């Protein structure tokens, strides 16, 4: 594993937990590292109800996995290294997810995965889905964005025309048009009542 230490200190683990909760609270997955003495950060944490999105044992487990994936020991996992996981490589949305995953360090990696924690709220999960849809990261999802996800998912099973027709139809049925732009509240309205389940269990020894 090169130069990265294979041991996590208790301080490291708590730092990751903090980063994780902060990232979810601020609604975006931050790319910058949070300096560990950040007063704003600790203020935010202390002013909110404390709940563990990711437990300490899960963080240790994820660290082992992160080190497994980070084969050249650079401290972050590259797109190639993610693609070496065959089940990930065959996923229709792998390219999209790679854009969000490429080059993440361990803290950011855990924050990304916290969207799949059973303790994460439905709202946060829907926000994650919104982020996956929002290709140009401008806070708005357009017809083209949804169409492109549909294209990833259906591939050669549908023609482009069929995809457009289907999307137009379901949009109109829901009271939207081809020119509609969706925001997070829109997604909340559409998906909020569904029994959406997006959970991954982190194996813990």
């Amino acid at each position, binding site marked *: 594993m090169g130069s990265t230490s294979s041991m996590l200190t208790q301080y490291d683990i708590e730092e990751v937990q903090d980063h994780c909760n902060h990232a979810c609270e601020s609604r975006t997955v931050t790319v910058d590292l949070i300096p560990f003495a950040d007063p704003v950060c600790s203020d935010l944490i202390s002013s909110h109800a404390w709940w563990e999105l990711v437990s300490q044992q899960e963080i240790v*487990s*994820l660290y*082992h*996995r992160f080190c*497994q*994936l980070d084969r050249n020991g650079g401290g972050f996992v590259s797109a190639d290294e*993610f*693609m*070496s*996981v*065959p*089940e*990930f*490589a*065959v*996923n*229709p*949305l*792998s390219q999209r*997810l790679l854009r969000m*995953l490429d080059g993440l360090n361990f803290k950011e990696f855990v924050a990304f*995965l916290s*969207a*799949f924690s059973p303790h994460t709220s439905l709202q946060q*999960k829907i926000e*994650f*889905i919104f982020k*996956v*849809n929002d290709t140009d990261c401008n806070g708005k999802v357009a017809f083209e964005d*949804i169409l492109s*996800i*549909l294209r990833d*998912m*259906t*591939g*050669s*099973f*549908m023609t482009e025309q*069929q995809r457009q*027709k*289907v*999307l137009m*139809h*379901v*949009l109109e*049925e*829901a009271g*939207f048009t081809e020119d509609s732009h969706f925001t997070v509240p829109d*997604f909340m309205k*559409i*998906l909020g009542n*569904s029994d*959406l*389940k*997006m*959970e*991954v*269990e*982190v*194996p813990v020894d």
Partner: protein
Amino acid sequence: MASSSVAADMELDRPNLEDYLPSDSLPQEAPRNLHLRDLLDISPVLTEAAGAIVDVSGSLDLKSSVACFSGLFGAVQVDGRIISEVFCGKLNLVFVANHTSMIDFIILEQMTAFAVIMQKHPGWVGFIQKTILESVGCIWFNRNDLRDREVTARKLRDHVQQPDNNPLLIFPEGTCVNNQYTVMFKKGAFELGCAVCPIAIKYNKIFVDAFWNSKKQSFTMHLVRLMTSWAVVCDVWYLEPQYLREGETAIEFAERVRDMIAARAGLKKVPWDGYLKHNRPSPKHTEEKCALYLPLPSSKK
């Protein structure tokens, strides 16, 4: 019979699958109405991706992914007509890999439970094949039996369609090749109408030469040599799934995947048909043939 099977082996054509298999391979389910929330809810697919990233043991069975993708299936009615079936899943796929040694399969099997299509070997190798591989779902074929091809093709198709079966691993080179080249890929794996996931395998020669020439050395001896060597080191790369492109023939598709695998593993491409290794007419044979047609003084008889 022997010579015609040699000729058949050496040509890349095979019987047209469509003549023998049903054309409609989509699942027959009663369509239900599709809504915007169905299209936007990509949570199952995202869950699969996250699960793959998180899985520490690396033993996540791919068949669970296949079953999950079959989830979304519905119809949209426009103007009273059903215009399309949104078919989000039923991810048919096969894995293809270049082939250096029989242990390729053993190495890959460590990562994912594959079903394999394999030539039956005589002796104790055949015994191992039968007992161990039967459990993962293996499709046997006999290379020299022409009619067996059609049966095999159908078995392959069936296997790939079933979501509960282990993913199919095919070595399209057809025979073990020296660790430096890839020979032409047989097109059979590429005309099953599903995604092809290429796997590139490259052995590190510093430790052992994994190449097995079945004509010169029995597999037993080969395996003994491998097992008594210090280590077998190889790199395995799982490459992005590939689909048949519009206007591309199965042979072109095979060549394109072969390019990817060869590039990844740093192997040279040669146009030889892999079976020439087994079926090249011997020089003696050619000489005798010449003697029949040319009025040469018969010095060798």
